[in-house]
């Protein structure tokens, strides 16, 4: 039966088959090992039934199924492995090249539109210097519709959805502009800060399309948001360097280019960069794909050590917290930071792997952040009952409570997962289901706060 020559050629054939499988992004090497075990057993059994090694190998490979179909099936289950490709199997190279060029052109088109839109009000006498307040409130409304437009174009969104997306922006324009506030009043600044958070949900719906209803679709959107942030910071750094060179060079020939930088280059560049960065996240996925998870791995231990040390110092020295107006905002930012660390650790984690030491550290991080936040809340609770609810304090407190609920339940689910009582997907689902809560709260700040606090001037 099987001669040494046969065995050698079988090994060669299996090696070749393995290398074909490995080229598929959706099939990872542990899956290849599992499939290989299957193939070998099949070959052995067919050989025992009387087939020659060659024949047995052919039959076994055939029964395994066509590579394309198999890789599509794996991609469907493991969408996290190629999360940016909505089409699991890449199109022909020639076709996809033309498509990616079209997409690049569309991205730059929408980016230019955002940059130009920012300067259109100037034609009607709304300049940056004269109408500060107008631009503070509407900043996100120049950029996000273009971003949504880009995704709507890319995903070929249907008419009904397009109508809903447009309606959301019309609503946003109305609520951002119907009230008149004292310039730079607390309510106006809060509105400017919360409007993009509320509208980010609209971006999510355009980004994920039909998959918005699924956990995976929202998880992809979370990944996208993190990578976008990183790309944007990188572009902003480059933009800063470019701007300072521009001013320096013109200064050498006695021309001050500052007006150009302030009125044109920086604002228009900042607007267009949002769309360009979004396009880059999807187009150059492999370059930066693992950036957010890597940063998470790096900073989770540091933040855990910081928080544990902080709490230990608080307990050991018996110091009280200095309460000032920015403390609550500081703790909000801390919770957001912790939430980001948790989210990006979750989004990059293989849900099937067993709990490890990094998971334990995440739980310690979340729990210590919660304890610190509750100490701060009790400290500030007295202050609020003394001074009443200013818009700033109410907004900060509301956000704090929302984050507190989110992180508390995450900690509970995480502990259950560590104990093996719950699968990791429960934790993922909790986070993706919670996403709209942030936007709803932001919408409340945008819509309700001006009505309640409209007459108050200072925060």
């Amino acid at each position: 039966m099987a001669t040494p020559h046969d065995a050698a050629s079988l090994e060669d054939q299996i090696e070749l088959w393995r290398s074909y499988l490995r080229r598929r992004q959706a099939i990872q090497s542990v899956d290849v090992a599992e499939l290989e075990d299957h193939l070998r057993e099949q070959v052995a059994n067919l050989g025992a039934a009387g087939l020659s090694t060659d024949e047995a190998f052919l039959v076994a490979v055939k029964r395994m199924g066509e590579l394309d179909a198999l890789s599509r099936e794996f991609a469907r289950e493991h969408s996290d492995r190629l999360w940016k490709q909505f089409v699991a199997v890449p199109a022909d190279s020639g076709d996809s090249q033309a498509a990616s060029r079209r997409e690049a052109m569309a991205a730059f088109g929408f980016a230019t539109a955002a940059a130009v839109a920012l300067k259109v009000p100037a034609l009607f006498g709304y300049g940056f210097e004269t109408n500060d307040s107008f631009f503070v409130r509407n900043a996100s409304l120049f950029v996000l519709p273009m971003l949504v437009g880009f995704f709507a174009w890319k995903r070929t969104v249907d008419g009904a959805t397009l109508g809903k997306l447009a309606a959301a922006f019309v609503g946003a324009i109305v609520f951002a502009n119907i009230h008149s506030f004292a310039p730079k009043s607390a309510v106006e600044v809060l509105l400017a800060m919360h409007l993009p958070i509320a509208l980010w949900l609209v971006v999510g719906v355009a980004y994920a399309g039909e998959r918005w209803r699924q956990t995976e679709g929202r998880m992809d959107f979370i990944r996208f948001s993190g990578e976008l942030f990183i790309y944007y910071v990188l572009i902003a750094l480059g933009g800063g360097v470019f701007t300072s060179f521009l001013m320096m060079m013109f200064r050498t020939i006695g021309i001050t280019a500052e007006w150009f930088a302030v009125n044109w280059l920086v604002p228009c560049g900042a607007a267009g960069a949002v769309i360009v960065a979004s396009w880059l996240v999807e187009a150059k996925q492999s370059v930066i794909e693992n950036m957010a998870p890597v940063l998470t791995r790096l900073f989770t231990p540091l933040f855990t050590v910081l928080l544990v040390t902080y709490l230990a110092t608080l307990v050991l020295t018996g110091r009280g917290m200095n309460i000032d107006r920015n403390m609550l905002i500081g703790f909000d930012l801390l919770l957001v930071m912790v939430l980001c660390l948790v989210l990006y650790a979750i989004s990059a984690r293989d849900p099937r792997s067993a709990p490890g030491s990094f998971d334990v550290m995440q739980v310690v991080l979340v729990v210590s952040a919660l304890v610190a936040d509750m100490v701060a809340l009790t400290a500030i609770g007295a202050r609020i009952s003394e001074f009443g609810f200013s818009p700033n304090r109410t907004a900060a407190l509301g956000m704090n409570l929302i984050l507190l609920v989110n992180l508390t339940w995450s900690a509970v689910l995480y502990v259950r997962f560590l104990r093996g009582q719950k699968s990791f997907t429960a934790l993922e689902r909790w986070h993706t289901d919670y996403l709209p809560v942030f936007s709803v709260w932001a919408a409340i700040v945008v819509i309700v706060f001006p009505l309640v606090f409209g007459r108050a001037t200072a925060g």
Partner: protein
Amino acid sequence: MEINKDLMAASSTPIVLAILSETDSYGYAILQRVRELSGGRMEWTDGMLYPVLHRLERLGHVKARWAVAENGRKRKYYRITADGRAQLAEERRQWQAVDATLRGIWRGLSLAIPDRQVAAPLPRGA
């Protein structure tokens, strides 16, 4: 007999869970068991079983571990979890409901299944 793709896909979860509730197993053996149980009537493409197993694992219905098999190679074994047993019970209820419904209809249609020979329809009013 060819069973259509949708039916195969829908039945894969209860079948795999049921086989695993008999005993822990691995991919190849699960497929052998399917063949045996269906008398060869259900032919799965071998590779397609694995994404199904991975989905069940992700959902927490089964747990996987790598162990060394008797032939000395590493092999991935699957075991059903408490969650998986609950899911199996649920699937079983649903399939029984479908089955009961169909049985009711089959009984009502007094004609036996003509084995691929469809009788020529009688002309109306004849």
